[in-house]
Structure formats: C-alpha cells, structure tokens
C-alpha cells in the first residue's frame, strides 16, 4: 500500500490564485492562434476589423494585466484527484473558494454572482464590499498521486446559448449534427462569436452537460479520440462556418473556431446530447500539482 502524498493547502490555494492571474487577461494560446487563422482567411472588412480588435485586445490585456472581458463569469473547476493523495486541511471546495474570492479582489474582477437566482425572493442583491464568488467544482478520482486542476472563467453570455436534448436512440447522425449546428448558428451574436463549441454525447441528463463543459476545458490528445468523433468535429465546424453568421453575428467566414466532442456510454433508451458554448475570450488553464 503506497503512502499518501500530502499536498499542502497553501500550495493549492496559491496555484489557483496564480492560475486565475494568468487567464483573466489572456485567452488560451490555442484560441489566439485560431483567431489569427480566422483573420488570415477573412475577406469581410467589418469581420476583419473586429478580429483585429480582439487580437489587439489580447496583446494589451496581457501587457497591462487587464481583463480581456469584463465578464469573468463563474469559476468552473474540474479537479481530478489522484487516489494516493490527501489535501491538507480542506475540504477542497473551501480552499478553492477562498482562493477564488481572494483572486477576485486581487485582480479587480467583477462580481457577477447573485446568491438568490430568483431575484424577487431576496432584497439582498450584491454588496460590493462583501459579495462572494461561487465556484462550480466537479470532483473526480483518478489513480495516482497527482492533483489535476482544470480552471475556467466562464462568461454568462456564451453559457446562456447552451442547450441539452434527450434524443431517441434511433435518431440519425444527421439529425444530431443539425441540432448542434442550429444551436450554434441560432445563437447569432449573443455568445460573442467566434466561439468554441463543447459537445457532450451519451452518459445521462446531467453527465452529458458535464461532458460538454469538460470538452471545452480539458485538452485531450487527438490519439485519445475515436476517428468517427474527430471527423464529426470537422464536419460540424465546416457546417457551422458555412452558415456565415460570422464574427459577433455580423457576418464573416468564421463563426466557430473549434468543436470538441466527448462521449460516454449511455442507456439503450437514450441519446443525450448537450452543447456548451464558450466565446473567443476563452479563459482556461490546466495545472498538475
């Protein structure tokens, strides 16, 4: 029986503060490359102007440590915890939550959380002096002695354009692809395109939504993906971009920069499909402790 590796609370706390410090002022390097690629093929003058503004913004924000977008959203963390570690003190949620709140003050990020979703139920709205960030933490266990943290600042505008549907198991692939394409295209300019599209297929009702989010946030190597899904991702990307919604829904060659699918086994009676959209301000990082 191998001994447990103890991870100090302070290390987790500081890692998260530093991670947020890196991502609030910069999209992922891959996203910036994809925006550059989109600019290289764009012909529409307004679309080019907007893409140029996005790239200029990335540069300025990184240099001046300013948020790339005022909506730093809700923090989503996938914590994949090795079964041979113990996080000192804890619980992990408390450490993450404290780090996020302190990062919010440190970097002057916007409080975007209302603790009462039905606003008329509570007069307490937001008190800027003591408002709290809430964190969505997904825990899973892995073999080994590492802690993997995948952290994202997820804006509300893009999140609102997400959708989940429980299909019949005999639904054709064509219908599923149409559903995904329509969901992205009918969002128009709302999620600040160019967007990234996460798709979860299979699992069950809640699991496919989590897969869609994870597909956006957690990089997986192409070799881990079934060729059928790789081809499906390419087809979806082409179909979405052919519709021409374009940059900010104002026309152009690129509406989506990337489509990522994650799939899992599901019940023979079901075929759950979830779509989670993120904007070009794609603020994600993966860290292993």
């Amino acid at each position, binding site marked *: 029986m191998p001994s447990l590796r103890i991870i100090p609370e302070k290390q987790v706390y500081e890692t998260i503060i530093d991670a947020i410090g890196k991502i609030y002022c910069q999209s992922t390097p891959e996203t910036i490359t994809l925006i550059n690629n989109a600019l290289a093929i764009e012909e529409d003058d307004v679309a080019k102007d907007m893409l140029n503004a996005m790239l200029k913004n990335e540069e300025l924000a990184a240099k001046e440590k300013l948020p790339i977008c005022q909506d730093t959203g809700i923090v989503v963390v996938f914590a994949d915890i090795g079964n041979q570690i113990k996080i000192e003190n804890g619980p992990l949620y408390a450490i993450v939550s404290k780090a996020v709140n302190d990062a919010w003050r440190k970097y002057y990020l916007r409080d975007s959380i209302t603790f009462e979703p039905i606003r008329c139920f509570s007069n307490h709205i937001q008190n800027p002096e003591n*408002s709290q960030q809430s964190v969505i933490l997904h825990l899973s266990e892995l073999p080994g002695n590492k802690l993997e943290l995948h952290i994202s600042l997820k804006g509300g505008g893009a999140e609102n354009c997400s959708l989940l549907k429980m299909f019949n198991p005999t639904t054709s692939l064509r219908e599923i692809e149409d559903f995904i394409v329509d969901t992205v295209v009918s969002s128009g300019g709302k999620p600040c395109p160019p967007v990234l599209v996460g798709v979860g297929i299979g699992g069950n009702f809640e699991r496919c939504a989590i897969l869609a989010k994870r597909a956006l946030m957690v990089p997986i190597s192409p070799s881990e993906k079934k060729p059928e899904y790789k081809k499906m991702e390419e087809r979806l990307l082409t179909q979405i971009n052919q519709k021409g919604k374009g940059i900010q829904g104002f026309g152009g060659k690129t509406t989506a920069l990337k489509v990522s699918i994650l799939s899992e086994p599901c019940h023979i009676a079901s075929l759950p499909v979830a779509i989670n959209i993120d904007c070009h*301000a794609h603020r994600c990082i993966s860290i292993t402790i």
Partner: protein
Amino acid sequence: MRIIKIELPLKSEEIKMFTIRDKLLISGVLYTARDQAHLRLNQLIKEGKPLPFNLADSALFYCGPAPTPPGKVCGAIGPTTSARMDKYTPLLLENGLKVMIGKGERSKEVTNAIRKHRAIYLICVGGISALLSQTVVSCETFCWKELGAEAIYRMEVKDFPGYVAII
C-alpha cells in the same frame, strides 16, 4: 466600412445619415443599464414616477463594469447580450431613448420600435474590455449602487467603437 466620428446626444436627423455596418467612433455620455436597471426603469415609467436621468436623446450601454483598479479611470467594460433587454426596450424608446449599444440580435418588436422612433442600435465587440476601457474618460456610479455591477453608471467616452446594426 465607413468610419464616422460622432458626438452624443444624437438627433434623429443625424441617425438618418448612417447605414448598416458603419463603424461609429462615439464621444459623449453613455449610461450603463443591464437587466435589473431595465426592470426598474420600466416600473418607474409605468408608475408615472421620475427617472434618475433624462431618457430623451440619451444613450444606453448594456454593460456591467468591473471594479476600477487603483490609478485607472475605470475597470473592464464591454457589452452584454442585448436580447435580454428586448422586453423592456419599446417602452424606453417611446420615452425618448435614442441610442442603444450592446451585442447580438434584437427581437422583431424591438427592431420595429427602433425604426419607428428613429433610434439606432449599435453592436460593440464583446470580449475586448482592455481596448474599450481605453476609450473611457470618466466613469462613476450614477444611481442604484446596491445593484453592484448592475447599477447605472455614467460613462463619458471618447471614440468608443460601435457598428450600426439596426437603424
């Protein structure tokens, strides 16, 4: 793409001169208003009560700013999704609102109301906060501070970029 510098407030006669996809560099005063502020403005109008600022010829920016870091004029700013304000917009247009800045499409009803009242809807690129905050000359909480980022802020801007989307 034409690039045109404009000064707020805008009059209907000026608005007529623009065409869809023109890029306007806007200077003047914007009031920010998001969902909760729209709800309150609508309630006040329906109850016949005075509004916190003069809506006639005014410009609304659908935006909730981030806190202002020390030594800066304002925090991160940028548009939020306009469609969430659709339900409340026709009444504001009837009461003189002229310019709206946000992101994304508007409903048929709002589009018609914008045309009827000779107003203008501009979209501004979302997710370029660092760039946009450079155009802000001053920014202060104007009213309803308790709403946090959803309060109404009075924002003076210089050459703030917006693209004509509905006219």
